């Protein structure tokens, strides 16, 4: 494990959903916690997200989705990472997900899912525990 480098995170908004309040708060939170942050901006296709993640050489992708298209968009990002042999990048999701969708997302390779009301400190702690710079 490379101890020199800080954890790099891509915060991304896949799909057409414009709700970016959460994503922007999370981006600031990660930055203030000492991670390196890249924010994709809105309206990215899964292909664009994966391309940015590889280009920016990130260790984790945080996907934000609040308009109901998560069951397509989030697994699609994981699938594309696999195709590009970049599935050592940790993927987690945040947003509005009905309870019964959460196991489906995890089965599809989303490592953790954060729903509204999760304290920011809990999210940062999770990243510290589960994500380290890729070798």
């Amino acid at each position: 494990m490379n101890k020199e480098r800080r954890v790099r995170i891509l915060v991304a908004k896949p799909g057409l959903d414009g709700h970016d309040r959460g994503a922007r708060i999370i981006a600031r939170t990660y930055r203030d916690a000492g991670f390196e942050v890249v924010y994709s901006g809105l309206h990215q296709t899964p292909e664009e997200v994966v391309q940015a993640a590889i280009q920016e050489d990130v260790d984790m992708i945080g996907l934000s989705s609040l308009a109901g298209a998560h069951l397509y968009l989030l697994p699609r990002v994981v699938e594309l990472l696999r195709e590009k042999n970049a599935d050592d990048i940790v993927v987690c999701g945040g947003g509005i997900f009905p309870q019964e969708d959460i196991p489906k997302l995890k089965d599809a390779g989303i490592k953790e899912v954060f729903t509204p009301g999760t304290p920011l400190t809990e999210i940062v702690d999770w990243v510290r525990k589960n994500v380290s710079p890729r070798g």
Partner: protein
Amino acid sequence: MFNKKSLEDVATEEKQWQKLFKDYTLKAPERLKRFSTVSDKAIKNIYTPLDVEDLDYPKEIAFPGEYPFTRGVQPTMYRGKLWTMRMFAGLGSAKDTNERFHLLVNEGQTGLSTAFDMPTLMGYDTDSPRSRGECGKCGVAIDSLKDMEILFDGLPIDKITTSMTINPAASILWAMYIAMAEKRGINRRIIGGTIQNDMLKEFIAQKTFMCPPKPSMRLITDTVEFGTNEVPRWNTISISGYHIREAGSTAVQELAFTLADGIAYVDAALERGLDIDAFAPRLSFFFNSHLDFFEEIAKFRAARRMWARIMKERFKAKDERSLWLRFHTQTAGCSLTAQQPYNNVIRTSLQALAAVLGGTQSLHTNSLDEVLAIPTEEAATIALRTQQIIAEESGVANTIDPLGGSFFVERLTRDMEEEAFEYIKKIDDMGGMVAAIERNYPQMEIADAAYKYQLQIDSQEKTVVGVNKYISEEDIPVEVLQIDEELEEKQIKWTNEVKNKRDNNRVKEALEKLGEACQGDDNLMPVIIETVKEYATEQEITDIFRDVFGIYRDPGVY
């Protein structure tokens, strides 16, 4: 309002009372170090005539229906007619939403309000690769006029008004509505309703965009001009603070940025050569009703007074209707919690009450499950009943502006007006709202406020019941509405059928004509209406807009 002698008496007594208060708190301290609104405005322990000592009743408050309309725009307010109960609805296919509309009308709803799915909002057809997974998820999917015809089938659109929450593609969806009405033999001069059509707040907060700010302003001004001349009962812009607040702004920011957007639209229409009093009466507003009860009531009262003053003093409007700030309200979606979802009914009730005490013209109350998915019929009915209980059981609609004259509410109203005018001055100094948006100014102000509020929740400085306090271990399950996963495929197939049946030569001609019109300066509405009547799809039209006007991309600032 107060004479000097009585103010002196109040001052003496208040001094004594504050000492008494302090003595009590030495024994038992106040429960908080600092009392503040949800927007973090500090609130004192008591408000007295001293807080509004120079209050000028005729100038600042006056009577309902009288300038500056602090107490309401109509003389009779809810004594004459209750607010319009307008529940935002849209799900799945046009047929699904048509069924929901019929249900709501049968349950006593008095106006329709349409939610579109993300592809429709962003100007993409269902078969676009960018639309994958989104069809019908957060509203109804509309690809062509055929869908619009099904959506309003059997509904009395000559009697009931329809609101459509649509922005980048507003001109197209409005054209479809007009075309649908005319195909049913209803004249465009008779139909009434609202298109949101407020792109400035999209760049600031809601973030459905298509073209850059300047061409977006051209499209909007085309609709304002066309409405003024051809569809006189239509509100062509709903200048919206709702989404600004949902994005995390304070109440003052919501107020200031919304009115600054309004100023920009008026400026654009005046530049087009329209007479202020010809179009200003059709401008309408849309606000959020958030958690802080009194702050919200003060915001609505301040908004009416500010807009009246802006229209009269800044724009020299003469028709009284130009001075009216008429507004729709939606309770705050962002205040709802997935945890203990039944608590959302109570939150929504309080927010709805604030909107009514603030004098709203129409209201949407959120359903308890709206934080999880599109509401079920049962949840939507409870939300509608909430309004009916406030209207017909609580007695709050018996008198007009019942909180007018409250020292606290009048002081808050005045403070919010002052603080919002300071923001408007800053935006004026930047060269207006379009320039301010290009500098990301409102976007960053909101991001700062949103981040601060989140940190206050995390540190428990602000309470969210069921989330950072009074947490239950057990989850109360609620039924969540599911959207048919096969809908996407069905909708694509259906639109392909529409494309096969239409006269494709005529579609091609209409689209070419539209492309040429976009290059010129003539109003685009007549040619958009002609194009949709040929069953051109939404994206066939937006592709032309993107091609001619360019594409706006999120600057991605945080």
